[in-house]
């Protein structure tokens, strides 16, 4: 989409963002609290996965659609990508940032789809949020309970934005989704630059797209 729009759109976006950022200093009304948001979305998605026969039969497209509509709106992929790319993020142009974000987003969607496909009726334990009402950066703790193993922690690092609370990192069993990519990305950028990283991610996403869907 923005690939055609180019950097002009990026510049426009920046201007809009700055204006928006200034406006958002005013107290925002009716923003769903982060812990409530995580709980609602999780239960919603699990309910759909449970009741949808196509998803249970391994319909990959439906899982991806589910993620796109229910989960992704609550993620700040630019922030996640920035975290994964690390120190090199500052050196990227606005267009490179947008393309990196797009590719990283696709990668995350596929990974997330596989995780959802692996879901098997585990129970969730939504931990009470420990934060002040004025906090703008919190961690929401969820635990997945299953017989015979210790509970698996899922931590959502969330940040308050003008458009509600957005997730900027997910840690599963203390493994950060973004930090896990940091070394890999840094290596690619060191050898082939930011554009090299974009190409690598594109190739990875394309290759996976060609693989038969719902493979187990």
């Amino acid at each position, binding site marked *: *989409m*923005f690939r055609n729009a180019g950097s002009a759109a*990026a510049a426009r*976006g920046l201007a*809009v*963002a*700055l204006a928006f*950022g200034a406006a958002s200093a005013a107290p925002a009304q009716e923003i769903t609290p982060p812990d409530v948001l995580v709980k609602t979305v999780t239960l919603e998605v699990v309910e759909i996965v449970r009741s949808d026969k196509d998803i249970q039969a391994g319909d990959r497209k439906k899982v991806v659609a589910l993620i796109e509509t229910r989960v992704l709106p609550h993620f*700040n*992929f*630019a*922030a996640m*990508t*920035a975290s994964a*790319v*690390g*120190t090199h*993020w*500052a050196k990227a142009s*606005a267009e490179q940032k*947008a393309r990196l*974000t797009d590719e990283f987003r696709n990668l995350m969607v596929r*990974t997330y789809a*596989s*995780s959802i*496909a*692996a879901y*098997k009726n585990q129970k969730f334990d939504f*931990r*009470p*949020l420990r934060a002040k009402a004025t*906090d703008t*950066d*919190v*961690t929401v703790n969820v635990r997945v309970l299953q*017989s*015979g*193993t*210790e*509970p698996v*922690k899922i931590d959502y*690092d969330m940040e308050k*934005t003008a458009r509600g609370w957005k997730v900027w990192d997910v*840690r599963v*069993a*203390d*493994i*950060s989704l*973004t*930090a*896990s*990519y*940091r*070394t*890999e*990305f*840094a290596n690619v950028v060191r050898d082939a630059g930011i554009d090299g990283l974009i190409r*690598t991610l594109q190739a*990875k996403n394309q290759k996976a797209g060609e693989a038969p869907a719902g493979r*187990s």
Partner: protein
Amino acid sequence: MSAGRNGRGGSGWAGVRAVAAAALLAFATGCATTNGGDPRDPLEGFNRSMYAFNEAFDDAIAKPVATAYKSVTPEPVRGWVRNFFANLADVFIGLNNLLQGKPLDAATDWARFAFNSTLGVLGINDVASDMGLEKHNEDFGQTFGRWGVGNGAYIVWPILGSSTARDSVGLLLDAYVDPVRRHEPADARAFAGLLRAVGHRADLLDASRILEEAALDKYIFQRDAYLQRRRGLIYDGNPPRDATSRARGQPRAADADRPFEEPAARAPAPRAANSYEPREPANYAAVLAASRVRH
């Protein structure tokens, strides 16, 4: 992903000795291959060849066997197998909790063992979890970490997979006290060890497929994930926040040449449960801007 941490001991003590011998041999060759790589991974050359070996072993043997096991056993049966070995492990998980100064957790672990071994019929049913006695994940490597021992070099062992210098010593102790390894007669021991390893690999089939899809370089992805995971385990799920969630795009001059930090070197204090540290990202406007370009 190879058989993994809990799949160890399948081949018994002789296997461990063979692995140790292979490691000594490999140290000699592996040390030469450090060309400005990750300071946490000075043995990367050796580790990568071990990783390749493990991948080949996994593709040829472990994964097919685990897949077959999964297809011939219904989930309840696999659950019994998983619970049976998990129950045996609770005894030394309790000991490790005690060594780490967590007597209440240790008491929980031993109560779990008592209830599951009796009411749970030799541990095949995890009744203790239903009673609210939560399972823990501890081993000697974590105990050393808790005592302040750093990771040391990252090491990939044949079959056993990811480890570190510290965790390898822990692994030897874990294997030494392993009730399966001490079981007589040898036939039953071998069967039990194999069953545990296969069951464990079967449980990881989904995870390894996700790894396959997620990683650009599986070796690095798995290494970094392992180090993060172990760090999390040592702090019982509350590691100090900043070493893993730090970089968030802020340019830091020191990081350009040295993108990693040994967590132990920072001597961080364990965080209280569910605590948080508000931060103001320096690049907030830029991040928002980039996110808006899409919409």
